[in-house]
C-alpha cells in the first residue's frame, strides 16, 4: 500500500539532500578558492615588505621570521606553517633565509627561474612558491601546500558546518509538518473506523480541508447510495414478513379448526382448505424469491430470446389449470420476434401475466395472448375476462404487496410488481387497461426488439 506521508517525506528529504549537497559543494569550492586567493595575497604582501628592506650581503641571517614581522602573515602558531623566505642578489648569493628554511634538506629554497606563482615539489612535499624580482633582489617565498589545504578546509568546514547541522533538523521538521498536515486524513480514517459496522450516517465534512473534501464527499455519496440500498432491503424484508403473516395466520387457523370438525365430510373440507393455505404460502415464498432475484440481477443485456418459444412454454404450463376451469387459452403468435433478456426472465414475465389472467377470468372464459411488433419494440398483450379494475387502481396494483379491494384471489400482491421490475430492467414497460368491448383487463408489455447486430456486438463486448 502506498503511503502519502512516506512518499511526501521521502521526496522532500531527497530534494533537501540534493539542494544541501549542491550548496555544500559550491560552498566548499568557493571557500577554498577564496582562501587560496587570500593566502596568495598574503605572500605578495610579504614580498612587498621584504622588497622594501635592505640586506647587507654579509648580514647574518635574521633570527626573526618575516612571519613574525607581520602578524597578518602568521596564519598558524605551528612552526611548520610558517612561510619560507629567501632573498638573493643578482649573482644568486643568499642575502636572507628564513628560519623555516632549515626544515628543507637543502637548507634553503633552491633558486627558481620563473617569476610569479608556481607549485613546486621540494623534499617530496608540495609547496606553493611566489618568486618576485625587486630591483637587484630576487625574493622567493614558499608555503607548504598541506598547510594551505588545511587552511582552506578549515574555512570551508566553518562555512559548511551550519548547513550540515541544519539538514537533519530540516528533515525532522519536514516529517513533523507532513504528519501534522495529514492529520485531517487520519481523523477521517479514525472517524470511519470508530463507527459501528452498519452506521451509514454521512461524515461531517464542514471542518475538513479543501483537499480532503472531495474524497469525503465521494465517500458520503457512496454512503448515501448504500443507505438507500440497505433501506430498500429492509423495507423488502419488513414487507415480506408482513406479507407472510396473513397466509400464516390463515394456516394456523385452518389447522386449529380441523379439530372442531364433527363429521368426516366436514373434516375433509377443512383439510382441503388447509392444503390450499399451504399452497398459498409456498406460492408467496416463490414470488418473494423471484421478486428478490429480479431486483438484484440487473446485469448487462447481452442475451436475446425469441418470444414465441417462451410464450409456448408458459401457455403449456398454464394449460392444465385453465382447462380444469373450462378456460380457453388462445395465442396469436408472431414468429421471429427476438427481444433482449434470457428465457428465464421472459417466462417469468409472461407467466405472471398469464397466471393473473387465468386467475381472474371466470370459469368457461377465454384468455387471449397477442404478439406483435411496432417500431423497434415487441408488444405482448394478455386479455382476460375478469371484472377489470377501477381506473385509480390500474397503477396501484403494480406496488409491492398491494391488492385491489375486493380481490378474493389469494394472490400475493407481488406478481405485477415482479413483472414491472423485470420489464423495466429489459428496457420496456408494462401497463394495464380495462377492456372496452367487455369487462376485463389488457396487460400490455412492450420490450425493445433485439437487433442481430446489437446482440452480436454486446456479446463481443462481453467476451
Amino acid at each position, binding site marked *: 500500500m502506498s503511503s502519502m506521508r512516506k512518499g511526501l517525506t521521502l521526496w522532500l528529504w531527497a530534494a533537501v539532500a540534493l539542494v544541501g549537497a549542491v550548496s555544500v559543494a559550491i560552498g566548499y569550492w568557493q571557500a577554498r578558492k577564496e582562501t587560496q586567493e587570500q593566502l596568495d595575497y598574503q605572500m605578495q604582501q610579504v614580498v612587498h615588505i621584504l622588497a622594501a628592506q635592505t640586506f647587507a650581503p654579509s648580514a647574518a641571517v635574521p633570527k626573526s621570521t618575516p612571519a613574525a614581522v607581520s602578524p597578518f602573515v602568521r596564519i598558524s602558531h605551528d612552526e611548520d606553517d610558517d612561510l619560507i623566505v629567501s632573498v638573493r642578489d643578482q649573482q644568486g648569493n643568499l642575502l636572507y633565509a628564513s628560519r623555516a628554511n632549515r626544515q628543507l634538506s637543502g637548507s634553503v629554497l633552491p633558486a627558481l627561474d620563473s617569476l610569479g606563482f608556481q607549485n613546486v615539489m621540494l623534499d617530496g612535499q608540495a609547496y606553493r612558491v611566489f618568486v618576485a624580482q625587486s630591483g637587484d633582489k630576487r625574493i622567493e617565498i614558499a608555503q607548504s601546500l598541506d598547510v594551505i589545504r588545511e587552511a582552506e578546509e578549515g574555512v570551508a568546514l566553518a562555512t559548511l558546518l551550519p548547513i550540515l547541522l541544519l539538514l537533519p533538523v530540516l528533515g525532522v521538521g519536514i516529517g513533523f509538518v507532513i504528519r501534522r498536515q495529514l492529520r485531517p486524513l487520519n481523523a477521517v480514517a479514525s472517524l470511519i473506523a470508530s463507527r459501528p459496522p452498519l452506521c451509514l450516517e454521512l461524515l461531517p465534512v464542514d471542518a475538513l480541508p479543501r483537499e480532503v473534501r472531495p474524497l469525503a464527499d465521494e465517500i458520503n455519496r457512496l454512503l448515501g447510495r448504500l443507505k438507500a440500498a440497505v433501506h430498500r432491503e429492509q423495507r423488502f424484508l419488513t414487507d415480506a414478513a408482513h406479507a407472510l403473516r396473513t397466509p400464516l*395466520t*390463515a394456516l394456523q*387457523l385452518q389447522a386449529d379448526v380441523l379439530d*372442531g370438525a364433527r363429521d368426516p365430510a366436514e373434516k375433509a373440507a377443512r383439510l382441503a382448505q388447509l392444503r390450499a393455505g399451504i399452497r398459498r404460502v409456498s406460492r408467496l415464498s416463490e414470488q418473494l424469491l423471484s421478486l428478490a432475484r429480479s431486483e438484484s440481477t440487473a446485469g448487462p443485456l447481452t442475451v436475446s430470446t425469441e418470444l414465441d418459444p417462451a410464450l409456448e412454454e408458459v401457455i403449456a404450463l398454464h394449460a392444465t389449470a385453465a382447462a380444469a376451469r373450462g378456460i380457453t387459452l388462445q395465442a396469436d403468435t408472431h414468429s421471429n420476434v427476438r427481444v433482449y433478456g434470457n428465457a428465464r426472465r421472459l417466462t417469468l414475465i409472461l407467466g405472471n401475466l398469464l397466471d393473473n389472467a387465468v386467475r381472474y377470468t371466470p370459469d368457461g372464459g377465454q384468455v387471449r395472448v397477442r404478439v406483435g411488433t411496432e417500431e423497434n419494440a415487441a408488444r405482448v398483450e394478455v386479455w382476460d375476462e375478469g371484472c377489470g379494475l377501477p381506473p385509480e387502481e390500474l397503477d396501484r396494483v403494480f406496488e409491492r404487496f398491494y391488492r*385491489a379491494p375486493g380481490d378474493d384471489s389469494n394472490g400475493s400482491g407481488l406478481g405485477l410488481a415482479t413483472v414491472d421490475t423485470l420489464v423495466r430492467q429489459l428496457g420496456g414497460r408494462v401497463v394495464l387497461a380495462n377492456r372496452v368491448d367487455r369487462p376485463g383487463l389488457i396487460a400490455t408489455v412492450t420490450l425493445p426488439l433485439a437487433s442481430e447486430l446489437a446482440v452480436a456486438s454486446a456479446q463481443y463486448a462481453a467476451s
Partner: protein
Amino acid sequence: MRLLLVEDDHMIGESLAKGLRDEHYVVDWVREGPAALAALRDRYAGYSIAVLDWNLPRQDGLSVLRQMRADGNTLPVLMITARDELADRISGLDGGADDYLVKPFELGELKARLRSLLRRRDGRARSEMVHADLVLDPVTHTVRQGSGLVAVTPREFTLLRALMEHPGAVLSRSQLEERLYGWDDGVQSNAVEFTIHSLRRKLGPAVIENVRGVGWRLSGTP
C-alpha cells in the same frame, strides 16, 4: 351469542367463522370497512362482540372503530392485525379496541380473549355463568344442574347462555332469534319455542318462565 367478524382475507375469515361457529357463536362475516359500519349500525342485529381486522379495503379497521365509538356503540371489540409495533397497539387500544391480538395467533387464544371480554362486559369474575343450581361453562360448553351434567345441543346452549347473560331480564322472541341465527341461516318460525321446550324438558319446566306477550326469562332468584 352473535358475533360480527370483519376480515378481508377470505382464508382467515373462513377459518375464523368456522372456528367461532364451533364455539357456538352466531357469526356474521363482512369483508370491508363500510359494510362493517353498516352492520354495527343495525340496531336489531344484537351483537355481543366484534372481531375487527385492522387492514380492510376502502375503510380501515381503526377508522371503523373510531366511527362506531363516536356513534356511542360500546360493543366489545377485539382487534386482530399484522401490525405489532407498540405505537400501533397503543393507537388501536386508544381508538376504542378492548383487546388486541397480533397475527399470526391461535384460535384458542382468540376464543379465550373473547370469553374474557364477554366476562368483563357482564361484570363477572369467572367464565362460568351461575343461576340458582344451573351452571353454564362457555369454555367446556357444558351445562350442569346441581351435581349432574346436562347434555344440550349447540342451539339449546346458545339460547340458555343468552338468558343466563341477563338473569331476570325478559328476552323477546326476535331478540332470541338474533342470538340463534346469523344472516346466512334460514330462520325457522317456531325454532325458539321448540328450543325452549326441549330445554324445559331437560332442566325441568320451572327453569324458564314465559312472560305472556313479551318473551322469556329465567325464573327464580340467581
